[in-house]
């Protein structure tokens, strides 16, 4: 049910944007007001989320991640999983952010005849997630060509590498194909794997469909119903230079793309997509596993009134003795 409702919602948004792109008055709303709102909500919301996380206490210094902490010399220390220094933590975090190592460990449980339970490797989730995120990053950097004038060299260079293969004109960009393929794979995985489907909610599908809608409208705009790039750049540059314009002649498909992107930006800080910021704050990733070499004291520890047995015995010494009970200390 949530599959269809989220799909329909995205389609409705796209249709509204398309219709609005044809009409005159709503173009200003979709081309100026919505993007500005989206940027503000995105930046503000993300900052709010991150700052709130920063305020939350991290109660424990989590020593167990996934591997042997540095211990006795004859126990093999998995140094990458359990770094003791800041540099090591940085490396572990970098590998997590850049290569998704946690996802790499993803496994799949399977019941076989017997019944026997088997854990098998499942690398496709990791692979498609990696493909999607890296493609998205490259696509975002490539989009700087609309927002910066003159276009920086590294943007042009990246596009040249991305468009290495000479297929058609405008030249095919590999990331465009990869991102669509990866998103479709992730979607079908969610739908076809019963366990994953069971735990999937409206929000899971909505984010996927929104991203698919953005990628799809972008691809349509580039390869099939070409738009006037000069006009598109005028809109984008107008936004970042605070002199917004919506010139006539920008196709409605552009407004579909822009509107879906704006919606994603607005939705972003309040959804699971905010893991972009959260990943840096995962305690099992950003704390050094040095609890064996360093004493960690809770900074908010208040003095607890402790009444030891020795003190108690002292207090009631005479009474205990009078009762004829044994005493530890005479």
């Amino acid at each position: 049910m949530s599959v269809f409702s989220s799909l329909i919602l995205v389609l409705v948004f796209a249709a509204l944007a398309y219709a609005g792109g044809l009409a005159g008055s709503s173009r200003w709303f979709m081309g100026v007001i919505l993007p500005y709102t989206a940027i503000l909500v995105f930046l503000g919301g993300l900052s709010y989320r991150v700052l709130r996380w920063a305020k939350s206490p991290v109660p424990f210094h989590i020593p167990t991640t996934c591997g042997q902490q540095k211990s006795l010399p004859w126990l093999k220390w998995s140094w990458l999983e359990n770094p003791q220094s800041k540099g090591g933590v940085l490396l572990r975090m970098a590998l997590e952010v850049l290569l998704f190592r946690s996802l790499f460990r993803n496994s799949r449980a399977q019941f076989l005849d017997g019944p026997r339970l088997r854990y098998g490797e499942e690398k496709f989730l990791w692979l498609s997630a990696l493909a999607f995120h890296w493609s998205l990053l490259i696509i975002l950097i490539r989009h700087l060509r609309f927002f910066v004038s003159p276009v920086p060299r590294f943007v042009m260079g990246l596009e040249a590498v991305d468009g290495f293969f000479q297929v058609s004109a405008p030249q095919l960009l590999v990331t465009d194909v990869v991102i669509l393929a990866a998103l479709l794979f992730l979607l079908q995985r969610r739908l076809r794997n019963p366990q994953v489907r069971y735990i999937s909610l409206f929000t899971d599908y909505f984010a996927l469909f929104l991203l698919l809608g953005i990628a799809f409208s972008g691809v349509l705009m580039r390869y099939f119903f070409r738009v006037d790039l000069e006009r598109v750049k005028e809109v984008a540059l107008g936004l970042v230079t605070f002199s917004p314009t919506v010139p006539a002649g920008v196709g409605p498909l552009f407004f579909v793309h822009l509107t879906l992107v704006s919606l994603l930006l607005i939705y972003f800080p309040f959804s699971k997509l905010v893991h972009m910021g959260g990943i840096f704050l995962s305690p099992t990733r950003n704390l050094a596993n040095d609890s064996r070499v360093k004493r960690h004291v809770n900074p908010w520890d208040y003095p607890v009134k402790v009444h030891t047995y020795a003190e108690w015995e002292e207090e009631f010494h005479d009474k205990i003795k009078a009762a004829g009970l044994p005493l530890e200390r005479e």
Partner: protein
Amino acid sequence: MFMVEKALVGSRRYWLWVGGLLAVIGLSFIAYLYQLSHGLGVTGMSRNVSWGLYIGQFTFMVGVAASAVMVVLPYYLHNHKEFARMTVLGEFLAVSSVTMCMLFVFVDMGRPMRVFNVFLYPQFHSVMFWDMLSLSGYLLINAAITLVSLHAEQSDLHPPRWIKPIILLSIPWAISIHTVTAFLYAGLPGRMSWRTPIMAPRFLASAFAAGPALLILLCLLLRKLTGYDVGKKAIQGLSVIVTYAMAINVFFILMQLFTAMYSNVPGLTEEFQDLYLGTEAHTSLLPWGRISLLLMVVALILLLIPKVRHNERTLAAACVLVFSSLWIDKGVCMVVCGFITSPLGTITRYVPTLPEMTITLGVWAVGAIMVTVFYKIALSVEIAREAPAAAAYEFAERSAAAGHAEILSSPGATGGSHA
């Protein structure tokens, strides 16, 4: 599904080897970028010798890939159980060598950015289209077989039924890749030294000698480095195959030699003059051709002596001879030989350049790294399955990796924050 993490743990020696290979690949990638920007003019190829080392290596590796059939066929069709442990190694070797083939073709292209044109505008009358189709099909088939059978082995399952017909399909398909590759050459009207129906049989014979010879060497190396033994019987069985194939290969060469020399037709004798006899003008390939022939004959004589074959040390030496002689024959001489005398009778020298050799070495390094990683994965699965003790050890290691064993092995680990 693909158990990559098995390749991410290893000894110092393993990482040194992998690191070394990666360094070679990095270096050759720089050389490739140089070639990409300056054009294929940085190679030793020319207007007359328009294919060189790359396509030679491609042809040779197609043979190595096809040779997997020499372990698959006895195992699956004739139920040779002693090949059980070697089959997956052979298939992995095939996957790696087909990948190398594709890389060799790719680096040989003048406009690699248009590589998709082969799919976008398929030409059914071009042998190259069929060759590409058969090679990529072979890659897919072998990748599927190895993945599925390894996965089944790891989960202690019988492989799914549908894989059996695919395995059977891989047998004729292996023959097809080398046959179509031979057609690539044998179907050209103007190149007399290639235009012979014996091209495909000779390709197959030499492939079934060189490929299994390499597999024997790899198995011996594996036993020495890891202690994993495919079994003496398997190696002996394979050595018989190498012997027969080498004998047939030499026989084919002699047949070609007779036809050319006795008929004395200039176009036919050309090849043998270039390679073995030499005339005043044809000299650049002469030492290569002669060494190759000499090594082939010596290897064959060695292999024919049962004592030599039964002793694994001497067998290894013979296998080195087989592999290197056929590498020279196909990887260096065969392609260049067809070009050395141009259609207009000009004789052109061909010497590969440094960038060309670096790129070639890089593709070999890619193949080596693939074989290393694949064999490591295959071995860890096999060892876990066959030795319960090792499996238990691996279980401990895996659960440690999942974070369970820590508490057991290190009491007081959680003490820090409470103290």
